[in-house]
């Protein structure tokens, strides 16, 4: 759509706004002044320009006087710019050919005691607006179609709920999970606070809903490897890693694992138990398919002198003939309109806190490891026993809070939110199973802010006699004779120093962004907050949006949080994604950046300035020039200000449209 090259024919409309404007300045004089300005065909004033008769007057004039620009001098454009833009549209004029002059909020309302000066100022403002109006151009808000499908990255509780919410709304969802099964960290938990619900019991129905939902395509053991496009039309490449087991044939009978000769530490039990080279993460895994770990499997790692594999047992014993050693990685491309990142967290590595001697003694474990011990499906079937021999029942367990949280010595200043609660839970569960055991929690503060949380913590103290000692643990030492850890504590409330000899020390490790979160952030160009988690668009008002249109975040990828908050955010992210997907199209704004390629030298300064990565340097006709992606441009104009050659301009706010305004206001 080109701006017509004919002479501007401007209509100026001055609103009395009742007495708000007319009561301070002489609107007739102002109208007379306006009618004398260059290119002004007609100038009128009226009591309430935004009223029906006022609007009709403008429409009539546009038709009768063939106006092609309209100036409305009235209230703030923040009030009625949309009103008058719609009016222009209804009269057949492009909505960007309107210029509003603020002679109320910025003039008559604030200069009531200087009416003469206010009139002078109004004249200057209108003169500037008329010049600007004569340079306004027809601008387009392009409507781009949106692909009504979404990608959810991460199959933990947040990702599952995001996927279900979208799928239930009629959207096709691709759920990509990098491990062989969905379920995330929640599948590793025994019970959840504060209700002490069995974690798996509430999780597995959700997992099954996802597996069975007709709108969800589950891509497990898969990773996002490339991202192109933008909101409404993302083209994403997903790498499907080979399981070497055919998911359509595998019945998960387990015969293969029974006979498999190779084993490795079981990641699901964080190394506290072993699994075979062919394995299923846990019996209720979704999909319920075994996977071969090629780094451990003898078929892949051991060959004879002739190059023939030394093992092939699983293939021989599999009753469903599901083993396929020749499976290849496959890359698929999916096309989606929105993306939700739910890549979760990893626990803080306590080896970074050398004072706590993690790794030096097997009696010092992380909270997640203790959770596995508590779990009926864990290495001990739910019995509380000391690693690594699983013979001794620990009679004194010391829980150390804030390991890798609120600690500047390891560069983690924030609070991980969930540890006070999960420690109270673990202390309660320990005391339930070892009633004559002693549980100590060494804390800095107890943060129990959620629903039922404070009551739960009180239960630990009062009902289960868990001893809470307020102290920063300086050090854990290993007694050279007993080989037991001794926790050195200075009770802040009493001042007493204590050395607590423990059978088991549980480190309440904090939450860190997961490695996949960092990778995905880079792929989607989502920035990260100073704490390392994904940056939300606005801390208060837009917690699940990012600066990248069409990409949403939820769960622990956005920051440490518990299960109810993760679920709430997941649904919020799905709802935000639906705002785009349900509408069916996205609109570009009219006042985007635009580059004159004949003037552009490809210096790249604009690229450095754009907060939305909407500009790229491309080679066109052998020349490096800037190229703006309209759909990503939000219209700030920073690139236009930065451009050293004047090649980059912002539509509707070009230098040729702004400088005359500045000159007029400075001169008059």
């Amino acid at each position, binding site marked *: 759509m080109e701006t017509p090259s004919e002479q501007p024919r401007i209509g100026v409309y001055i609103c009395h706004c009742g007495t708000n404007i007319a009561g301070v300045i002489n609107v007739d004089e102002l109208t007379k002044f306006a009618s004398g300005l260059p290119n002004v065909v007609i100038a009128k004033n009226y009591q309430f320009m935004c009223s029906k008769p006022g609007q009709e007057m403008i429409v009539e004039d546009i038709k009768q006087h063939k106006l092609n620009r309209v100036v409305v001098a009235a209230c703030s454009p*923040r009030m009625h710019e949309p009103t008058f833009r719609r009016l222009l549209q209804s009269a057949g004029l492009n909505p960007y050919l309107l210029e509003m002059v*603020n002679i109320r909020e910025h003039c008559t309302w*604030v200069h009531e005691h200087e009416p003469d000066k206010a009139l002078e100022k109004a004249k200057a403002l209108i003169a500037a607006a008329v010049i600007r109006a004569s340079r306004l151009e027809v601008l387009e808000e392009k409507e781009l179609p949106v692909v009504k499908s979404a990608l959810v990255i991460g199959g933990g509780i947040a990702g599952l709920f995001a996927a279900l919410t979208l799928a239930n709304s009629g959207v096709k969802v691709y759920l990509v999970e990098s491990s062989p099964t969905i379920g995330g960290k929640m599948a590793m938990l025994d019970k959840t606070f504060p209700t002490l619900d069995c974690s798996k019991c509430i999780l597995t129905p959700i997992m099954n809903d996802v597996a069975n939902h007709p709108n969800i395509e589950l891509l497990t053991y898969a990773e996002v490897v490339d991202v192109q496009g933008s909101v409404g039309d993302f083209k994403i490449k997903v790498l499907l890693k080979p399981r070497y087991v055919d998911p359509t044939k595998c019945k998960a009978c387990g015969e293969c694992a029974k006979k498999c000769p190779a084993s490795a530490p079981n990641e699901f039990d964080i190394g506290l138990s072993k699994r075979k080279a062919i394995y299923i993460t846990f019996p209720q895994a979704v999909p319920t398919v075994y996977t071969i770990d090629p780094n451990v499997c003898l078929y892949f790692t051991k060959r004879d002198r002739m190059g023939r594999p030394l093992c092939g047992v699983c293939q021989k014993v599999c009753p469903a003939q599901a083993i396929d050693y020749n499976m290849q990685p496959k890359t698929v491309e999916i096309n989606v309109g929105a993306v939700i990142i739910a890549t979760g967290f990893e626990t803080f590595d306590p080896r970074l806190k050398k004072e706590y001697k993690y790794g030096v003694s097997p009696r010092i474990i992380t909270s997640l490891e203790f959770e596995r011990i508590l779990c009926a499906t864990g290495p001990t079937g739910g019995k509380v026993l000391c690693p690594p021999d699983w013979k001794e029942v620990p009679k004194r367990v010391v829980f150390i809070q804030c390991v890798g949280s609120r600690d500047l010595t390891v560069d983690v200043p924030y609070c991980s939110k969930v540890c006070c609660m999960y420690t109270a839970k673990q202390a309660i569960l320990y005391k339930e199973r070892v009633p004559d055991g002693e549980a100590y929690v060494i804390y800095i503060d107890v943060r129990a802010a959620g629903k039922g949380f404070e009551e739960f913590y009180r239960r630990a103290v009062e009902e289960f006699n868990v001893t809470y000692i307020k102290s920063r643990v300086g050090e854990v030492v290993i007694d050279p004779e007993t080989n037991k850890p001794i926790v050195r504590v200075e009770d802040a409330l009493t001042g007493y120093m204590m050395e607590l000899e423990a059978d088991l020390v549980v480190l309440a490790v904090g939450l860190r962004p997961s490695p996949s979160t960092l990778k995905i952030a880079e792929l989607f160009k989502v920035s990260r907050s100073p704490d390392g988690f994904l940056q939300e668009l606005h801390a208060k008002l837009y917690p699940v949006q990012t600066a990248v249109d069409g990409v949403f975040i939820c769960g622990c990828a956005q920051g440490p949080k518990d299960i109810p908050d993760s679920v709430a955010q997941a649904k919020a992210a799905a709802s935000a994604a639906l705002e785009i997907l349900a509408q069916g199209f996205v609109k570009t704004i009219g006042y985007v950046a635009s580059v004159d390629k004949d003037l552009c030298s490809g210096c790249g300064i604009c690229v450095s*300035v754009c907060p939305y990565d909407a500009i790229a340097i491309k080679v066109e006709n052998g020349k490096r020039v800037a190229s703006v992606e309209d759909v990503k441009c939000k219209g*700030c104009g920073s690139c236009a200000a930065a451009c050293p050659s004047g090649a980059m301009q912002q539509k509707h*706010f070009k*230098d040729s449209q702004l400088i005359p305004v*500045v*000159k007029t206001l400075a001169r008059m």
Partner: protein
Amino acid sequence: MSKPDFEPKIIVFACNWCSYAAMDLAGTSRTQYPHNVRIVRVMCSSRVTPEMVLTALAEGADAVLITGCHPGDCHYLVGNYKTLARYMLLKKVLDDLGLGDRVKLEWFSAGEGERFAQYVRSFVEEVKKGALSPKSSTPEEGGSR
């Protein structure tokens, strides 16, 4: 020598989201302030260039005020950091040229209507005083109008 009834002209650049809204708020609250300011609306303070500021001064404005959202609150995430850098560079040059007191940068959130009015009052006074001081140059020396 500048006249005692000298009325300075101050051009104000305001961003659509925060500072323009603050100026609107001053209006709806009927907070009175001197007429000497004329406001130019842009989407983000980062649209404002040193060229625009110098044009204002060269064409007859006595002072320029650049306004925007507080750092960290920019509607476009990081625009105001660029505004700050551009202003500081321009100020460095203007200081060297003896014009440093004529251009200012100030952040206003959408709720700071009263603060804006107060700022205008004191800035107008300052420019008036600056023009009347013995150090100010007369038109013959190529100084302020």
